[in-house]
């Protein structure tokens, strides 16, 4: 209560300052008048009475001052004065203010944006209940234990039923996550479908908000691609439910047509739910686990498995139990004898590869923040020394020390706050940029939000650094004897030189930090060029790619085979198209369907050494011509390779060398995918990923392999250049074939392959930005310190010139000084780069972390920038007017 009254009273006197002052005047005047009248009544003359009363009561002004003190607003008054003074002084040195604020903004904004990204991707827990209990289950074999393979339905069912440490294990079908066409006629569109085990919702602990989800019996229902007699079930995402049923709660139990088949709606998921691995999904259907008990149940790897550990069970204990279950399973099924299974914390598994990139970003931003602090220190030091005379003068004129220190603090604080504000804006822009650059390649980045704690963190850091570096010179200025400074004007003094030394060290550290960042950016740049110069074995320029799914309901295997071939023929005939075809997995976009393979003829037939794994690819049309894979011998598929005829395969060079050493592979027989096939051709090797990794390949003709499953073949169309026009023609051609077909995710082959490189590109861009900022900051620092040195020594230069020194010698003197500081900084930076080589090693590609070209390039580049930064002050040194200096 009383505090409130107090505050109100203070606020009142602050707000109605003028009125208060006037009233006080009136009141004091009234007092004087009363006193004078009183004395007059006692017999004193009027003028004498006034004089006496004035003497007795003291002057009016001191009284007013005392009253103002008592009303508790004096410090606010002074603060306002100091703040106004600060604004005026900063306005006078706009350059200094702008550079300081900009530096702070970069430091704060950069740190906050990058910190937010690291937080969103690495630190935030997965958005599921008890996320620490979720683990990913991978399968491998004794020959390669660290391999992270998919799980067979046989193994999955076994561990789901037998591992007691699991509070449930859910399976997601890995290969059928393509989608389904829903709707009909012109309205047909494709949605992303995720086949899961019935207990999926229990394992992630997110239940449908409507409906009951799946029952265990649903897992034995028909496949999404098979013809079905009974209606299958589907759980819809919140968005799909709103689109297809307008958010009607009565949708449960009704049917939705997918791929022309009716599905009973069994549930609706909560809004915003995303799968931990597959991301945003439109609908869930039960995975068909009938295969678990088929003969290939323990060998057909196609499930992604997530398990939830029972509360309190450490992952190690679950792993031990899992090992026992897998061993027992291997004893039961000889084909699974060599199987191994391994658990990984789910979050680690999801974030895994991108954590290094983010750590490097964090390191980069840390270095930049350090640079920012150094720069701020530097700037404020210059400013303090520039103003030492001003402070000496003020102090000589009787300014309180406390007031002067406060004044400097207010100045620092004003700069810091302006920098904070600008930093917020930079942070927002930076975050938008990070999301735009990295959303596709870094998981969880899309959820990036400005975390208040992070913001506070960087605001505090920046403000504190501004205060500390502002306060140090302030205290020094307050201690200085005014006489010393005033006497010392414009003459170089030991104090000045000591400051120069300190600032030189600051610049050296800046150069070193910037050097490390530049080396990092240079290494990534070199890596990137390496990657782009890799020969993937294909010609991805001007190749259109899109996915095409043929609904099983309307297309049986024969019809599918026929349609894919007809499409390829029709597209190849279009003007502007060189060749067209289809493949089950686009080249250089990762592994898929790696199956066991063995020669049935030749020297290794029946030999264990001939048993290899090979990537199986199903192709249609003129695939090899479309992506530019040369045929080395024999032929590729054509009309002769028909369904029902003898099975033919085309193999790549490396497979031919591996299983048919020393003989002509043409006409030989090999076994894969459960059939014996004759080799009719050998083609050149193709990389399995965009880093050029090699693998064995065996290609099957889709016409002969269509019965295996519904291969939603990705279509590739090589064009003579005008992709956009061709894309429209392709769409038109597709429509004449079947108006219900959907050209799904059209892109270029280049882009499809480039996706994998996106993460490195992301890191590269960020690091290059950091390096440029760092370089700019250190150049600024160098420029600042040299300019200051020139100003301090202008008298010396003047004398030298008066004594006949050439402009050139003065220029080179200052330049040399700048280059010496830069050179020392670069040596220190080199040591840092060597120390960080191991961190960078994991991110570079086919480039040594201490690549001499990168190091030399950095030295040259940095030297050039430093030379420019040093030239200006050096030039200014030669412009010193001899007369001015010597007269001063």
């Amino acid at each position, binding site marked *: 209560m*009383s505090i409130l009254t*107090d505050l109100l009273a203070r606020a009142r006197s602050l707000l109605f300052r003028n009125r208060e002052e006037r009233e006080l005047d009136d009141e004091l005047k*009234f007092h004087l*008048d009363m006193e004078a009248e009183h004395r007059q009544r006692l017999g004193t003359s009027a003028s004498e009475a006034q004089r006496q009363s004035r003497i007795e009561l003291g002057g009016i002004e001191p009284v007013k001052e*005392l009253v103002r003190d*008592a009303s508790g607003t004096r410090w606010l008054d002074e603060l306002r004065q100091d703040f106004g003074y600060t604004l005026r002084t900063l306005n006078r040195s706009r350059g200094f203010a702008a550079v300081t604020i900009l530096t702070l903004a970069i430091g704060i904004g950069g740190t906050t944006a990058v910190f937010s990204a690291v937080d969103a991707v690495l630190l935030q827990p997965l958005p599921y209940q008890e996320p620490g209990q979720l683990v990913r289950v991978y399968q491998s074999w004794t020959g390669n234990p660290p391999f992270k393979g998919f799980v067979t339905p046989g193994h999955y069912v076994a561990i789901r039923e037998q591992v007691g440490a699991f509070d449930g294990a859910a399976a997601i079908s890995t290969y059928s996550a393509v989608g389904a066409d829903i709707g009909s006629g012109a309205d047909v569109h494709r949605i992303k479908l995720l086949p899961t085990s019935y207990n999926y919702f229990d394992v992630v602990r997110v239940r449908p908000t409507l409906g009951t989800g799946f029952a265990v019996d649903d897992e034995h229902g028909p496949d999404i691609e098979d013809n079905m007699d009974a209606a299958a079930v589907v759980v819809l995402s919140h968005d799909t439910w709103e689109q297809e049923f307008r958010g009607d709660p009565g949708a449960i139990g009704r049917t939705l047509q997918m791929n022309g088949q009716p599905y009973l709606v069994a549930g609706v998921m909560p809004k915003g739910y995303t799968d931990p691995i597959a991301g945003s999904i439109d609908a869930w259907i039960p995975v068909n686990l009938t295969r678990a008990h088929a003969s290939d149940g323990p060998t057909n790897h196609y499930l992604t498995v997530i398990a939830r550990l029972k509360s309190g069970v450490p992952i190690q204990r679950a792993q031990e139990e899992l090992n026992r279950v897998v061993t027992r399973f291997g004893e039961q099924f000889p084909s699974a004898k060599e199987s191994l299974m391994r658990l990984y914390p789910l979050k680690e598994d999801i974030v895994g590869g991108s954590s290094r990139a983010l750590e490097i970003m964090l390191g980069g931003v840390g270095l930049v923040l350090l640079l920012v602090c150094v720069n701020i220190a530097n700037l404020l030091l210059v400013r303090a020394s520039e103003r030492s005379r001003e402070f000496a003068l003020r102090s000589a004129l009787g300014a309180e020390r406390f007031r002067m220190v406060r004044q400097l603090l207010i100045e620092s604080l004003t700069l810091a706050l302006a920098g904070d504000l600008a930093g917020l804006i930079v942070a927002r822009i930076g975050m938008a940029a990070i999301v735009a650059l990295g959303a596709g390649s870094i998981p969880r980045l899309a959820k990036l939000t400005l975390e208040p704690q992070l913001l506070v963190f960087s605001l505090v850091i920046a403000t504190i650094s501004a205060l500390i570096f502002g306060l140090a010179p302030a205290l020094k200025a307050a201690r200085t004897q005014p006489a010393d400074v005033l006497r010392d004007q414009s003459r170089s003094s030991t104090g000045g030189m000591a400051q120069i030394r300190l600032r030189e060290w600051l610049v050296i550290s800046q150069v070193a930090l910037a050097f490390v960042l530049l080396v990092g950016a240079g290494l990534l740049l070199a890596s990137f060029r390496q990657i782009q110069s890799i020969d993937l074995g294909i010609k991805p320029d001007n190749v259109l790619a899109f996915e095409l799914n043929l609904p099983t309901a309307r297309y049986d295997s024969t019809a599918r085979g026929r349609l894919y071939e007809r499409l390829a023929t029709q597209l190849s005939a279009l003007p502007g198209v060189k060749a067209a075809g289809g493949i089950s997995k686009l080249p250089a976009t990762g592994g898929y369907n790696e199956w066991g393979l063995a020669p049935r003829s030749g020297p290794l037939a029946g030999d264990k050494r001939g048993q290899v794994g090979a990537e199986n690819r199903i192709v249609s049309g003129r695939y090899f011509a479309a992506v530019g894979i040369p045929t080395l011998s024999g032929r590729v598929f054509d009309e002769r390779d028909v369904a029902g005829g003898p099975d033919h395969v085309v193999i790549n060079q490396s497979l031919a060398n591996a299983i048919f050493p020393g003989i002509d592979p043409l006409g030989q027989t090999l076994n894969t995918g459960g059939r014996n096939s004759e080799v009719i051709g050998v083609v050149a090797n193709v990389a399995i990923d965009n880093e050029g990794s090699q693998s064995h390949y065996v290609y099957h003709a889709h016409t002969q392999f269509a019965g295996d499953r519904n291969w939603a073949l990705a279509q590739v169309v090589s064009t003579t250049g005008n992709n956009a026009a061709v894309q429209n023609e392709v769409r038109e051609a597709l429509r004449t074939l079947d108006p219900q077909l959907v050209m799904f995710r059209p892109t270029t082959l280049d882009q499809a392959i480039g996706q994998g490189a996106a993460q490195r590109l992301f890191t590269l861009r960020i690091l290059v930005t950091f390096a440029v900022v760092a370089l700019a900051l250190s150049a600024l620092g160098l420029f600042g310190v040299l300019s200051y040195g020139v100003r301090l020594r202008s008298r010396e230069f003047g004398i030298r010139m008066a004594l006949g020194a050439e402009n050139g010698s003065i220029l080179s003197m200052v330049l040399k000084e700048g280059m010496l500081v830069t050179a020392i900084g670069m040596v220190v930076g080199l040591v840092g780069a060597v120390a960080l080589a191991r961190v960078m090693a994991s991110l570079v590609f086919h480039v040594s972390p201490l690549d001499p070209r990168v190091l030399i390039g950095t030295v040259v580049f940095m030297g050039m920038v430093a030379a420019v930064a040093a030239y200006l002050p050096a030039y200014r040194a030669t412009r010193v007017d001899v007369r001015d200096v010597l007269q001063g």
Partner: protein
Amino acid sequence: MTDEPAALVQGTLEMLVLRTLAIEPMHGWGLAHRILSMSGEVFLVTQGSLYPALVRMRRRGWITTAWRTTENNRRARYYELTAAGRRQLEVERALWQRVSTAINSVMSPAWATGIP
């Protein structure tokens, strides 16, 4: 004891103002004058101590102010005790009584004779 007005005992000005205002609302000069006369011309309160004290007391909520017209038809700022001011007066009065009794008994001439 001299006839010259004396300085106030440290810290008692606010108590005297509270006490004086308890009689009736009055303006600053009236207050100073009343204190002087009530103290037998001993306590002269200067403007330099009176007005800051009034500002402080107003901040504490003990007094309120209002501009009124005096008998002589002049405008003056009048000060008036609030309920909180009255309570404060009682607190200070009680405290003063304890302190002055204690001081009086310490200063009692009886001690010189050894009789408490």
